[in-house]
């Protein structure tokens, strides 16, 4: 992102003059207090919000003024994990994870293989037939991660993925995200858990009041 500005209205600037770069296969934390703009930054990266000024390069393409019809196609290359999991309660874990395959038109054996692989990676093969409300918080978040990675996206965005989880489960989730990163997926995690993040020795981008305070550019 280069000098990106984003606002929710004329008197509601969310992000101001954001300049940052995240390299392929990096694992980056975005930290800051509540209201700093972490979620806004991820929503921008996810093309859920338009930017009013600046450039945003994604997969080598400037998506700052992307056409609406291109957004779904770009989103298929970005996995997203949310704080509230966003699992469909009337679908089983397998069906939730398979939703991405349905959207992409993947069926048959390939669909089964992808779902099984994603569930195996997050350790939920034995819960494939369960409904989300029967799962613990940690299991629900793992199911959400499985859905986010089932189509092998090059980028994974996670917005406060451990916000509803206890510390032990939080560590398990971050370990899982690290494993995913180890496979070459660029992982960006927004979190306010700054103390723990600093101990991970991963790159940290700090933002406050909609501005990048530090860590916007990777070390040379």
């Amino acid at each position, binding site marked *: 992102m280069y000098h990106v500005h984003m606002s929710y209205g004329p008197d509601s600037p969310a992000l101001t003059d954001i300049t940052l770069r995240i390299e392929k296969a990096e694992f980056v934390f975005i930290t800051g207090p509540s209201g700093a703009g972490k979620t806004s930054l991820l929503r921008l990266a996810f093309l*859920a919000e338009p930017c009013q000024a600046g450039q945003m390069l994604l997969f080598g393409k400037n998506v700052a003024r992307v056409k609406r019809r291109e957004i779904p196609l770009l989103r298929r290359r970005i996995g997203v994990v949310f704080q509230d999991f966003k699992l469909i309660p009337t679908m089983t874990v397998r069906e939730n994870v398979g*939703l*991405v395959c*349905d959207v992409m*038109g993947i*069926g048959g054996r390939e669909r089964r293989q992808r779902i099984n692989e994603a569930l195996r990676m997050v350790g939920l093969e034995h819960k494939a037939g369960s409904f989300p409300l029967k799962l613990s918080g940690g299991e629900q978040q793992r199911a959400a991660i499985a859905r986010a990675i089932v189509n092998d996206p090059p980028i994974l965005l996670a917005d406060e993925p451990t916000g509803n989880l206890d510390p032990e489960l939080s560590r398990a989730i971050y370990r899982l995200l690290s494993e995913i990163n180890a496979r070459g997926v660029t992982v960006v995690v927004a979190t306010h858990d700054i103390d723990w993040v600093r101990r991970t020795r991963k790159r940290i981008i700090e933002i406050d009041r909609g501005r990048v305070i530090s860590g916007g550019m990777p070390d040379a």
Partner: protein
Amino acid sequence: MRRSAVIVSRALVDLVRRPAVTGLTIGTVAVVFLLLGLFGLLASNFSGLADKLSSRLRLTVFVDDDCQRECRQQLQQWLQSREAVAAVVVVERQQALEDFRRRLGDDAHLLEVLGENPLPASLQVELRPGKRRTEIMAALATQLEKLAGVEEVQYGQRWLGRFFRFIRVVRTLGLVLGGLILLAAAVIVSNTIRLSVYSRRQESEIMGLVGATPAFIKAPFYLQGALVGLLGAGLGVGLAYLAFLVVAPWLRMPVGLGQSSFTPAFLSPTTALLVVAGGALLGLAGTAASLWRHLRK
């Protein structure tokens, strides 16, 4: 193929998951199309009856007592020169009396009281087959009444005019009421789909987040609306047909003198299919209205 299967599956699951609402909506659309169908049948059969009746009509030109042979021949030639006229037959006064005596049958002796023959001579005009016979007859009558030797022209104009006015009223009423109840049916379908959209709002949001296009998200709802409309219209047309089978034998009637009769007709298969397709369109319209309000983003 997979995407199509997903769309169909999502559409059907929603309909099956709420059988009461689905059944009620289909039933309501069926009633709408039943009413429309019955009204349409009424209007079309009345039109058919009017056409049949008007095809049996003859123009009768009554001539003055002063209009003798030469005058009648001139009138006959004038009529035969008109493109719309197929045949002209002159009925002399004596012939008219004989015809009347035959029609009276056993009461023919009543004519003894009359003394002299009161019936005028006339020209019986038969028109060529074709449309707008009533209008052509009216135009001919207007021209004839201006000609010398013509006392009166009759073709059943009074009752025919009333009958056609009645048909126009039925048609207009049918269009207005039909339009209103179709609108009501579209609103009902729209509300049914709205329930579906609402119950799947989280799923629709998530599908958008994982890269589903707006068309992929909306397609199952359109399919639902079309199915509900199609099934409702099909049921309505079927019920209309059953009603027709029961009532039609009572409506067969003779037309004019002789063996000719009018037999009511149901919609042709093509028309029936078009009506059912119209039901699907109604469903699509109701869905579009619902999605426009609830899934704009």
